[in-house]
């Protein structure tokens, strides 16, 4: 009987590789939407506590990204878009990514619980757990509804921000949750349309791979039709100003128009790329307008006082 002992090479991973492991673009979206949730809350947090909450949310989102990259290294290696990530490229060993992700996940939740409040920490834990266990380990490889259900994890940051400020969950952050939740399918399926070969090669059952491009375009249109009125809901339910309402209605009309054009498209991926790019702008616009709304209300309040 022989015993084989494999020796792990000393790591050459730099700090940048670990930052890449945290998916900084996804992280920035989580932080931005959490910031909006935190600032539109009726209770004002001390800036230091608010900063602490945002750092914890950023680190928690980064932890979820790192654990996703650890688990998905095998399929990431097969896809052009993800092959250069630190784990499949061999710059970070899988064990290192796992340890890094677990440390950050536990650390971010514990610090948020200790320094801010337990409800926010519990929501952050749910968000990380949902992304890693439900989306990454279970749904991603088993159903074309992966990003629909998994989208709940990415939709939670505004609720975490709100909970950090108030210690509770209200209707407004739930509305923001729903906006991101219904925004996720058109956003990711637009990407999947022009990356479907990548997903097919890796065996990931994204909708265009499983149901075809025509069905995906129909589904994008369906979700865009739900998203547009939802985006304007903070205005007509009285949580945001008419300025927000105008922007939300215009942006909603634009995303529906793009979805119709995508639905009509037969050849090429120009419309899906436009849809993907605009969906990012759409979400940014809506949340930025909520921030502007809040700042304007504060300024008017101060000037009248």
């Amino acid at each position, binding site marked *: 009987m022989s015993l084989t002992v494999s020796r792990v090479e*000393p*790591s*050459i*991973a*730099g*700090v940048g590789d*670990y930052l890449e492991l945290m998916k900084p673009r996804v992280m920035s979206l989580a932080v931005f939407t959490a910031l909006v949730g935190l600032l539109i809350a009726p209770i004002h947090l*001390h800036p*230091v*506590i608010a900063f*602490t909450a945002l*750092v914890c949310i950023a680190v928690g989102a980064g932890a979820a990204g790192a654990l996703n990259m650890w688990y998905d290294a095998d399929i990431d290696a097969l896809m052009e878009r993800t092959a250069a990530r630190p784990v499949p490229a061999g710059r970070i060993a899988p064990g290192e990514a796992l340890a890094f992700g677990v440390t950050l996940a536990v650390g971010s939740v514990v*610090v948020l619980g200790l*320094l*801010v*409040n*337990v*409800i926010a920490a519990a929501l952050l834990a749910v968000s990380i757990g949902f992304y890693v266990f439900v989306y990454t380990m279970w749904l991603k490889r088993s159903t074309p509804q992966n990003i629909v259900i998994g989208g709940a994890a990415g939709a939670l940051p505004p609720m975490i921000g709100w909970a950090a400020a108030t*210690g509770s969950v209200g209707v407004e952050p739930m509305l923001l949750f729903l906006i991101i939740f219904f925004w996720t399918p058109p956003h990711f399926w637009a990407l999947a349309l022009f990356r479907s070969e990548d997903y097919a090669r890796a065996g990931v059952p994204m909708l265009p791979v499983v149901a075809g491009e025509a069905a995906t375009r129909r589904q994008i249109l369906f979700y865009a039709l739900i998203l547009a009125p939802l985006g304007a809901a903070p205005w007509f339910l009285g949580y945001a100003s008419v300025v927000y309402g105008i922007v939300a209605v215009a942006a909603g009309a634009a995303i529906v128009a793009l979805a119709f054009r995508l639905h009509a498209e037969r050849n090429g991926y120009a419309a899906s790329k436009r849809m993907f790019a605009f969906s990012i702008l759409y979400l940014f616009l809506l949340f930025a307008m909520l921030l502007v709304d809040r700042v304007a209300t504060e300024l008017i309040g101060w000037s009248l006082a």
Partner: protein
Amino acid sequence: MMTDIVMNEEKPQTGVRLTEQQLRARRARSIAIAVSLGVLVVLFYIVTLVKGPGVLVRPL
């Protein structure tokens, strides 16, 4: 003495020898960990000042 001779002899280096690149990467990682821990310590200190005596009293 025999013992002195043995103790003064240079032992052959065994184990893993890091390359220049690996040493640089390890140093960068160590500095990043030190900075992160330092930031965490400062954060806890400032939050303690901000919250005052009620530091452990926090809403659910």
